[in-house]
């Protein structure tokens, strides 16, 4: 185990959800069946941009076995048929326009999937084709067709003082973020060198193996959903608003989620399903295919232009950045992504001045939204590539260049924000050592293959912004506990980590604690399973709840024993007073009788708002990702083989170190895939490979020869010093590989993926 640090939790534990998962007993939303349940299918637009002139569903409705059909005509009757984060422009179902190939136009509920499919073919839609805009450049061109006729509902994200946050500032621009520190132009003008470089980032799909699947049941006043959504309470709020129904009569039930990566956050097709279930008068299940999943959400592609000033001896001075993200047809989480990309573009470095403008452009392509590490991934690729480029241009070793400019522990990321809490230089040194960076000599071209090494430090703020969570911990008379919190298990290990935190606080063995089922009626509110906040934020709420329960337990025992609570200590469901041990269960049974008594501890946490912080709250913790890569490039074919990947991340103090390692390794491989081959490709408005057979994701055979995750423990604000780590592995991989390719063959790739053809073209262009 690669660990540098001292966590409280040294022993290795079996994941609490493990036995279910290795025996096939684990139930996912995919497995939910309700009696009388109908099956739904969605009709999708075959056009990237079109006005919907007429929809005739009569033939579909007449098909035996079809129970209900819904279209935009049903959606428009809803109190508020739009959703999106901050800016709500996505309709429950297309109302007057289709805005991308795959846009949801109509939906059918039938007795089985086959009938539903047949019914789709019987829905007649008349489209008036409109000119699509399918790239950032096309969408921003003068006179470009507009995706929306009128402003969307919602408001720009509220940020800190002096930070720009605009909603729909220009045609086909969804939102804009602007940040400035000092006078960037003045500082640039005085700098010894100014370098301007442009980078292109690609779109990939989350490709979680459990498809998007939901079951909805509407009975009278009550709406109930079984959903694979990562954010049950956010979803409840949206359903309440969209349907004009009180939130206390809407229940969202969560199960294990078969992979999320941010793709299952915020509204997707749940409102559509509720609409259909209302009309059908029976429960309805909608399970998308993975093909449809590819047409539901992607990571933001984008163009990042960085103008960076530096002194002749390699000190960074100022950076002016323009970040253009391709938000696709609808808002989804673009407003958040814009803010985070813009804010993180400065990387882990010290700057005299900064000027950043970041905005999301509307195009007739699949909506882009939250994808593991969002903003940090795009920003790190551009920033860490340019850092290397600048170092090379100045004749400075990229390691030395980074070391010279890194923020130190205790230095604020930006004025008003929290201080960096990881040893950025120390982490880099460890990676450099394990990679063998110092021993490496750039090999002379041996035949047609060349080897090179590259470094990178990605960074993002972690834990969300101004985040909050609530939790309950119930302790039963027998000393068993149930943790009630709504951090949903998506594979990140929330079940085990939160149970471990409760067990440690209550001084109970881990196998006495169970993570309770999640539904919005019974589980306390959580702001969503994302932003790597489960351990640090929800975990804090759980720890406080467990602490509260301890207090109540000791108060009870003190009363029974006729002493003060502060004379007592809790240990393994026994109360100790001096040398005497008093088991709790008999005390409880004696006092209460009957069914006994449960101690219910309550906890909550709220990261304070702070208008002086650029994002409106100081960042809870910092999540760096140190990457060392070694590649071999075939000069004649352009094929890149990754020989070594050494990746470091900071868990603060691991609550479950094995899970931390798994999260880093999983994220790194996703990032590796995107760096070399994975991409949702478009030709104009048409997605070219939106089917699993053609959409290649990493397999076991894609692993580098040597692959190592290093978990640092520099301490964090969460329980027992924890941070979050789930997104870290995404951040630095692409730039490290780009830097290694440059080291090997002297060419710079500023666009991902680094396909053999692209690499070869760059090699040929340079010679």
């Amino acid at each position, binding site marked *: 185990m690669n660990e540098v640090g001292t966590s409280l939790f040294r022993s290795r534990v079996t994941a609490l959800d493990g036995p279910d998962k290795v025996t096939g007993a684990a139930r996912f939303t995919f497995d939910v069946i309700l009696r009388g349940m109908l099956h739904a299918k969605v009709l999708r637009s075959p056009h990237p941009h079109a006005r919907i002139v007429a929809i005739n569903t009569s033939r579909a409705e007449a098909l035996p076995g079809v129970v209900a059909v819904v279209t935009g005509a049903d959606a428009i009757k809803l109190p508020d048929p739009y959703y999106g984060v901050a800016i709500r422009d996505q309709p429950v179902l297309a109302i007057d326009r289709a805005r991308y190939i795959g846009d949801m136009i109509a939906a059918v509920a039938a007795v089985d999937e086959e009938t539903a499919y047949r019914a789709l073919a019987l829905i007649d839609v008349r489209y008036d084709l409109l000119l699509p805009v399918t790239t950032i450049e096309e969408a921003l061109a003068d006179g470009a067709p507009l995706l929306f006729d009128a402003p969307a509902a919602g408001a720009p994200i509220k940020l800190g003082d002096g930070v720009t946050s605009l909603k729909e500032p220009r045609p086909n621009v969804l939102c804009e973020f602007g940040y400035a520190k000092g006078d960037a132009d003045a500082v640039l003008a005085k700098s010894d060198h100014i370098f301007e470089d442009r980078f292109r980032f690609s779109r990939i799909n989350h490709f979680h193996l459990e498809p998007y699947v939901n079951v909805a049941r509407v009975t009278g006043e009550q709406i109930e959903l079984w959903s694979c959504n990562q954010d049950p309470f956010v979803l409840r709020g949206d359903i309440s608003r969209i349907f004009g129904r009180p939130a206390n009569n809407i229940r969202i039930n969560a199960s294990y989620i078969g992979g999320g990566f941010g793709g299952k956050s915020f509204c997707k097709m749940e409102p559509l399903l509720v609409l259909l279930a209302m009309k059908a008068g029976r429960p309805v299940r909608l399970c998308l295919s993975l093909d449809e999943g590819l047409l539901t959400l992607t990571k933001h592609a984008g163009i990042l232009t960085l103008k960076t000033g530096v002194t002749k001896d390699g000190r960074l001075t100022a950076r002016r950045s323009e970040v253009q993200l391709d938000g696709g047809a609808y808002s989804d989480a673009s407003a958040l992504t814009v803010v985070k990309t813009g804010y993180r573009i400065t990387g882990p470095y010290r700057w005299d001045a900064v000027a950043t403008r970041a905005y999301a452009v509307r195009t007739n392509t699949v909506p882009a939204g939250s994808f593991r590490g969002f903003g940090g991934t795009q920003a790190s690729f551009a920033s860490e590539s340019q850092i290397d480029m600048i170092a090379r241009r100045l004749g400075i070793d990229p390691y030395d260049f980074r070391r010279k400019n890194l923020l130190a522990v205790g230095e604020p990321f930006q004025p008003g924000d929290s201080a960096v809490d990881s040893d950025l230089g120390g982490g880099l040194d460890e990676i450099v050592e394990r990679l063998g960076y110092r021993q490496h000599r750039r090999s002379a071209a041996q035949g047609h293959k060349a080897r090179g090494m590259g470094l990178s430090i990605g960074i993002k703020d972690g834990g969300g912004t101004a985040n909050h969570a609530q939790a309950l911990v119930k302790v039963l008379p027998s000393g068993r506990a149930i943790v009630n919190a709504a951090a949903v298990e998506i594979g990140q290990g929330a079940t085990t980590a939160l149970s471990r935190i409760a067990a440690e606080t209550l001084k109970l063995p881990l196998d006495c604690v169970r993570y309770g089922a999640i539904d919005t009626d019974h589980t306390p509110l959580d702001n969503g399973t994302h932003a790597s906040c489960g351990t640090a934020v929800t975990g804090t709420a759980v720890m406080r709840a467990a602490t509260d329960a301890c207090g109540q337990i000791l108060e009870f025992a003190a009363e029974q024993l006729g002493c003060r609570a502060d004379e007592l200590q809790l240990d393994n469901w026994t109360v100790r007073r001096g040398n005497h041990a008093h088991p709790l269960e008999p005390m409880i049974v004696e006092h209460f009788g009957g069914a006994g008594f449960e101690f219910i501890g309550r906890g909550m946490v709220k990261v304070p708002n702070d208008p002086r912080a650029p994002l409106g709250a100081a960042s809870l913790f910092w999540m760096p990702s140190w990457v060392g890569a070694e590649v071999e490039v075939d000069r004649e074919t352009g094929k890149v083989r990754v020989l070594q990947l050494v990746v470091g991340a900071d868990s603060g103090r691991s609550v479950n170190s094995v899970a931390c390692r798994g999260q880093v390794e999983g994220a790194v491989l996703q990032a590796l895939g995107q760096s070399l081959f994975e991409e949702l490709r478009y030709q104009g408005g048409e997605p070219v490979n939106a089917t699993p057979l053609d959409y290649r994701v990493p397999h076991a055979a894609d692993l580098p020869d040597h692959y190592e995750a290093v978990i640092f423990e520099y301490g964090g604000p969460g329980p027992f010093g924890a941070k979050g780590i789930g997104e870290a592995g995404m951040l630095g991989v692409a730039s490290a590989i780009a830097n290694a390719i440059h080291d090997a063959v002297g060419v710079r790739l500023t666009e991902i993926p680094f396909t053999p*053809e692209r690499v070869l073209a760059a090699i040929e262009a340079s010679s």
Partner: protein
Amino acid sequence: MRAEAGDGGAFMAGGIDIVNRMKFGEPITEVIYLVGLTELGAISDTGGGLRLGSLVTHHEIETCALVRARFPELAQTWHDVANIRIRCKGTIGGNIMAADPNYDFALAAMAAEAHLDFLGQDGAVRSVSAMALGGLSAYGLLTGITLPSAARLRLAFDRSLRPAITLALGLDVEDGKVIGGRVAIGCAFPAPVSLCLPISEPLSSREAVERAAILARDHAASLPEPVTNQHASARYRRQMIEVLLRRNLATLAERIT
């Protein structure tokens, strides 16, 4: 049976192709399930070469002792084709009849100049050269593939650049000299394409190695225009055909004694 089934009918062996085609909406209403016909699954010795039944699986190509002995490069390459599930269930006959340029067995058959046996609807058996692939389903049911004598044939495969291009190379060898050969290219054209190598006189091993670059260049130049798709451009494919052919020719020729 096939004639009775009409347009909605299809032969099915491993079913890898059929089930996917149906899921994507192809109106197949009758399936003629071949798996019970064990005689189509045999591998037999023709005295030098091999006859492979059309229902032989990819896994059997990889593991059968006779294939490994006669055509070791074929067996070794087949260890990597697709994945273990597809290799166990998919058949070489189904692979060829799918006529997919990304599939591999047609390339092997072309490089080896194999012969394909078909059972027509009229009951007659026809043997067709693998080099003449095209419009295959018109011939009827593929029953077997005959590979020529291994003593005269050397095979090499290069799948390192798929899905941009895959390549199978077959050299005919007599008295220790290369007297001819074929190159089959996959992934780069709408269908698998094979051409004979422009070898006009017997070449010793050393001569063949030295001439590899020129042979590759001339051969690549004589091919039709490759396709441009999401995986690669025509230009890149044409370049890589030459590079991979040169490399594989040199490596294969060097081993001839």
